[in-house]
């Protein structure tokens, strides 16, 4: 039996959905609907480094890697002999491109806020989900890296401040009465509503507005049609993408702003998810076990992640390992200045580490210094008369 030709590598299932990542989820839905299940396999590799571009979803077909949802859809359309139903008129094709771009940019930003940047959602559902997908030491490096890219996305929406850790050290302990410098009792600060709210709650108003804008843009575009582009015919690639984003937005988070806004005000979009859910055949997905990574590969990935998270060096390392700018023929170009800056960064980090070690070895600054010396043996009896006294001291008559 020849193995199926198409291998789809994705992030694994979470939150009751087939994948934790919207583009992977869209790719799975697209394949499930378009390609007979004997012709492809689905591998939850959970490892972006399986393909040279470090992006999931990735498709392996006849030893060619394709990555990213839209590229995969294009590739399947060109190379695989199946009816993909994407016979669109030019205006529909333009709309499809524009809405796919809107979904992947704005939708990703909203998901980044709701699942990654929000501290409670990250601690309670997203991080545990990644922990169940990843093998042991990688749970330390991969999820924080994913979160930091998501926080950057949230920043573009002006919501990055959500992710900042709340500093609780500064709050005075309740038992002690504080006095001001002039000796009066300091009144405790009144806790207004703003001070007692979770960061998610203070951000809720703005976030809700963003969510409603997003939903209403999609809702007005779809109107009363069955799918986004048309009433008749099979769903198109943008439908699967919308389905994936909307499904992940419906995940129950500790502060379910996205979910509530969707279900309360946009019935038509909720119905659309239902339609797509009905559409997908009930047959099982062709899951296949990912090839075992092996201890060496695991260790390599882990140390990669560790180096990437060192301040000063990590960025350059990441760029060197998998990023950088390719020239027009697709070759990597490594510039010389960059190497210098990298080396400089490494030296500075080492110096900082050394300084910290030095600082640690010093006694705490500001604390009073205690010196411990061996207590002097008290000299009694004949010993106080020096050597001769010591000699006489041994005589039993003085005992």
């Amino acid at each position, binding site marked *: 039996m020849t193995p199926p030709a198409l291998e789809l590598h994705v992030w694994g299932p979470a939150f009751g959905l087939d994948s934790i990542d919207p583009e992977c989820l869209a790719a799975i839905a697209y394949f499930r609907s378009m390609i007979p299940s004997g012709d492809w396999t689905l591998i939850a590799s959970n490892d972006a480094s399986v393909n040279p*571009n*470090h*992006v999931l979803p990735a498709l392996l077909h006849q030893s060619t890697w394709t*990555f*990213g949802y839209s590229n995969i859809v294009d590739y399947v359309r060109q190379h695989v002999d199946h009816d993909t139903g994407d016979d669109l008129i*030019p*205006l529909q*094709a*333009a*709309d499809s*491109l*524009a*809405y796919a*771009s*809107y979904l992947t*940019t*704005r939708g*990703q930003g909203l998901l980044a806020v709701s699942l990654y940047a929000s501290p409670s959602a990250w601690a309670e559902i997203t991080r545990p989900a990644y922990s169940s997908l990843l093998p042991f030491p990688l749970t330390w490096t991969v999820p924080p890296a994913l979160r930091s*890219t998501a926080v*950057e*996305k949230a920043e*573009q929406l002006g919501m990055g401040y959500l992710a900042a850790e709340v500093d609780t*050290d*500064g709050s005075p302990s309740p038992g002690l009465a504080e006095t001001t410098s002039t000796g009066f009792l300091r009144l405790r600060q009144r806790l207004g509503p703003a001070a007692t709210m979770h960061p998610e709650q203070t951000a809720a108003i703005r976030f809700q507005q963003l969510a409603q*804008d997003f939903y*209403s*843009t999609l809702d*007005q*575009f779809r109107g009363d049609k069955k799918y986004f582009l048309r009433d008749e015919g099979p769903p198109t690639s943008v439908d699967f993408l919308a389905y994936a984003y909307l499904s992940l937005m419906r995940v129950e988070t500790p502060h379910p702003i996205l979910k509530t806004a969707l279900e309360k005000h946009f019935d038509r979009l909720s119905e659309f998810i239902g339609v797509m859910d009905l559409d997908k055949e009930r047959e099982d997905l062709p899951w296949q076990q990912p090839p075992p990574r092996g201890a060496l590969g695991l260790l390599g990935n882990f140390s990669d992640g560790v180096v990437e998270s060192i301040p000063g060096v990590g960025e350059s390392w*990441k*760029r060197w390992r*998998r*990023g*950088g*700018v*390719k*020239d*027009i023929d*697709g070759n*990597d170009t490594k510039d010389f*200045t960059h190497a210098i*800056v990298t080396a400089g960064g490494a030296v500075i980090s080492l110096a900082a580490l050394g300084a*910290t070690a030095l*600082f*640690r070895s010093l*006694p*705490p*600054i*500001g*604390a009073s210094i*205690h010196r*411990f010396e*061996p*207590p002097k043996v008290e000299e009694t009896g004949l010993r106080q008369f020096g050597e001769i006294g010591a000699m006489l001291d041994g005589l039993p008559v003085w005992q």
Partner: protein
Amino acid sequence: MPSEETRDRTRPGPRPSGPSGWFAIPAPLARLFKKFPLLTYPPNELPARSPDIRDVATLYVFISDSDALKGLPSYNPSCLKWQTFLKFARVEFRILPSNNHASPSGALPFLLPPSQPNDVKSQTPIPSNKLERYALAHGASKIPDVPNPRLEAYESLLDHRIRNAWLYSLYISPANSALLSQLYIAPVSRSAHVRTAILYQLRRAAEAEIVRSTRRPAIDPAVLYSEASEAFRALETVLGSGPWFFDSSEPGLFDASIFAYTHLVLDERLAWEDRRLADILKECPGLIEHRDRILHDCWE
């Protein structure tokens, strides 16, 4: 007895260390940083040399001194977008060259409204995200504010696919580095070392922007250009045969945003060496006509 003594000697002194000795911030540093900010100053007033009475609004953009006098288009897309939009709205304004450090929000453009003495409100600069409201309130011609649900979707094409290709083309493409240094680096400093540092910073910033937008760790110009080409073709399709986008009777903000890129890509006055973006645009005659129309209406 002696064992007691040695134990005393080796026992470490009482250390007020936290739960994790190595990664905790040292207590004196933590105490020091807890004190900040000591004092937040009110915003500075305008410098004394700035005129008390400005009877006409001033838009600060990236532009050369001589072009600013003639009121020519800025060479920065986001500045040009607002410059064009203010012209659409027929707001009376002049432009002055400036840079990011001068802007209260850290980014150009910003606008200083015409001011009266002793009126603090008129001295507040207007950042670019509030310029639309300002233009609608102060412009002579009312721009029809027709919300179109498709507008946001097409804006994302512009803000990501086309912007990425623009960033690559101007900032990273080695062939265009002469143009980049003429526009953004030469005006800043005459020192070769400073120029090298600024070039490096600009390139890294552009790279980071592209990586953040594409979600791909590597930057592949062939992919960026083909994505931009798809986006331009989609825009060409949606423009159709009408004069302005989305069947509007008057040009709006979206037309200004498109023009900001198409004009600069096609501008003969900019010494593009790597002309791939212009070649892509040449396949979209509708967009070229659209650009010529705006250039004619606003600058000729």
